[in-house]
């Protein structure tokens, strides 16, 4: 009569009549990006999840093989839309490693600043979505409006709101415009004051706490062995950050803490992002303080004839979602031989769902996705 106390998958195996399917995505308000799960449901809970990926597959890795080295620069930011700069930095980093280039100090610092700004835009969007997934649209509206201030800074610096194409092999494309630095200082103060507001309406909201607590728990061991990186890893209590462990750009010259949380659930992940806001603000401030004078790039000649010597290299950066890696193989031509991209959301989006979704209530799926910051384009590529 009452199957309350039986395991969900057990019921699903026993009686097929009790199972029904719900399509969660791609055209679903809870889904950000073009991606979907088909979930077998029992009652209000999920018994099994099937993945529908590839809706955003554009064959990046193939197109890059047919493009010039510099042409690819305009392509790579489109791999992850909300957080484009890590792509550029990793791609350029890999090329620079093959060539053995050491980019100017000023370029390193500027790269750091743009990377951190990009992280901030991405986090603002991700946390806004957490608000949206729980119906707290006000948070989303406010955070996205604040994110626009950062996008304006990007536009001033690079000419593009979303896709900046600013990092190039050998440095960055152009120097900071006049007054930009002071404006950014001001913006950091603004965000610091804003954090209090976010705390009030999102991070300390009792209902948000209730909703997030215990959703999608990952332990430290699991995170390590399942290839989960970035904030999701740190939320399980592992004090690890590529910025420290495998420094790139100017991170080895800056001082910052790695925030961690213990529980590894959605609440921990959200709180971790909250802590990362502060870290990011402090990093940007330090980088602006220490910004040295000098060139911003090494002139590498005509981009149409630009060649990278034979060799291969793997460069990775810590993006807002985790480890972004580019493995580039060059045979010395004007086009890359092979570019392989390691997207951070892949283990979470395509693999972790089979572990977490069974047994989860349909209510929590959107929240689970948003706190893990699953970004469909970076595993579809």
């Amino acid at each position, binding site marked *: 009569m009452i199957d309350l106390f039986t395991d969900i998958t057990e019921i699903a195996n026993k009686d097929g009549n009790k199972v029904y399917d719900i399509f969660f995505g791609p055209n679903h308000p809870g889904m950000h990006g*073009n991606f979907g799960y088909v979930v077998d449901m029992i009652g209000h809970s999920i018994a099994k999840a099937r993945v529908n990926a590839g*809706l955003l597959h554009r064959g990046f890795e*193939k197109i890059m093989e047919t493009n010039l080295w510099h042409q690819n620069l305009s392509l790579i930011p489109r791999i992850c839309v909300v957080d484009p700069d890590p792509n550029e930095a990793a791609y350029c980093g890999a090329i620079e490693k093959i060539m053995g280039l050491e980019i100017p100090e000023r370029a390193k610092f500027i790269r750091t600043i743009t990377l951190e700004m990009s992280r901030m835009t991405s986090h603002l969007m991700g946390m806004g979505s957490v608000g949206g997934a729980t119906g707290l649209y006000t948070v989303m509206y406010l955070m996205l409006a604040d994110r626009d201030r950062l996008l304006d800074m990007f536009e001033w610096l690079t000419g593009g*709101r979303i*896709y900046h194409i600013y990092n190039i092999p050998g440095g960055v494309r152009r120097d900071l415009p006049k007054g930009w630095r002071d404006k950014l200082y001001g913006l950091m103060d603004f965000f610091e004051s804003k954090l209090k507001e976010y705390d009030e309406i999102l991070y300390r909201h009792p209902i948000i706490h209730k909703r997030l607590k215990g959703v999608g728990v990952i332990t430290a061991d699991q995170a390590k062995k399942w290839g989960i990186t970035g904030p999701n890893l740190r939320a399980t209590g592992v004090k690890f950050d590529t910025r420290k462990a495998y420094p790139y750009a100017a991170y080895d010259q800056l001082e910052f803490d790695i925030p961690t949380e213990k529980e590894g659930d959605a609440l921990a992940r959200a709180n971790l992002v909250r802590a990362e806001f502060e870290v990011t603000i402090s990093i940007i401030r330090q980088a602006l303080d220490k910004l040295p004078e000098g060139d911003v790039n090494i002139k590498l000649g005509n981009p149409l004839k630009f060649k990278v010597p034979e060799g291969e290299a793997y460069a990775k950066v810590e993006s807002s979602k985790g480890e972004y890696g580019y493995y580039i193989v060059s045979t010395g031509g004007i086009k890359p031989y092979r570019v392989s991209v390691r997207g951070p959301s892949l283990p979470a989006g395509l693999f972790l769902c089979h572990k977490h979704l069974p047994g989860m209530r349909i209510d929590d799926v959107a929240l689970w996705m948003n706190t893990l910051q699953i970004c469909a384009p970076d595993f579809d590529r």
Partner: protein
Amino acid sequence: MLNEIEQNRKERQSAWEYVINYFRKRSIWLLHYCTGCGAVELPPVMTSRWDLERFGVGPMATPRQADVFLVTGYASIKTLKRMIRTYEQMPKPRWVIGFGACTINGGIYYKSYNVINKLDRYIPVDIFISGCMPRPEAILAALEELRNMIQRGEAKGYDRYVKNYDWYKKNQKEILEREGSLFGEADDENK
């Protein structure tokens, strides 16, 4: 010639249609479907800075409720299938806005093996927005233009779809249900 057609169309629009079109243009509901990366510029347009709701435009959850299908960027083949299904589920009148360069000619992905090049061959598009990605102002301008077209009774993409249904279906089938390879002999060597 073109002017004449336009003249005819204007004359045919009755007073009742004019009124209805007024209400339609004042209340445009978008379908909340992020087909491509262009979707990242939609939240800013909807949120506090640009505030799309001023014009009665808002996102809707399901195709049954939506008026406008905003194809935000490139459409991969898998997505195209879903797009067509979604488009056919929308009640009339329905409009399509092609968003970004990718919908016009494939844009930056013109040589990709998995992204279609011309969206208009598969579903009828009323307005294209150029650029990659288009700025929020461009989206607002496109919606303004769509409103004017609705008022004038020109935005009839759904009629075009009904009239040329076979042609559209043929094109869709070419992509989605192709049998056999396009490079005939290459098959045997590798498989």
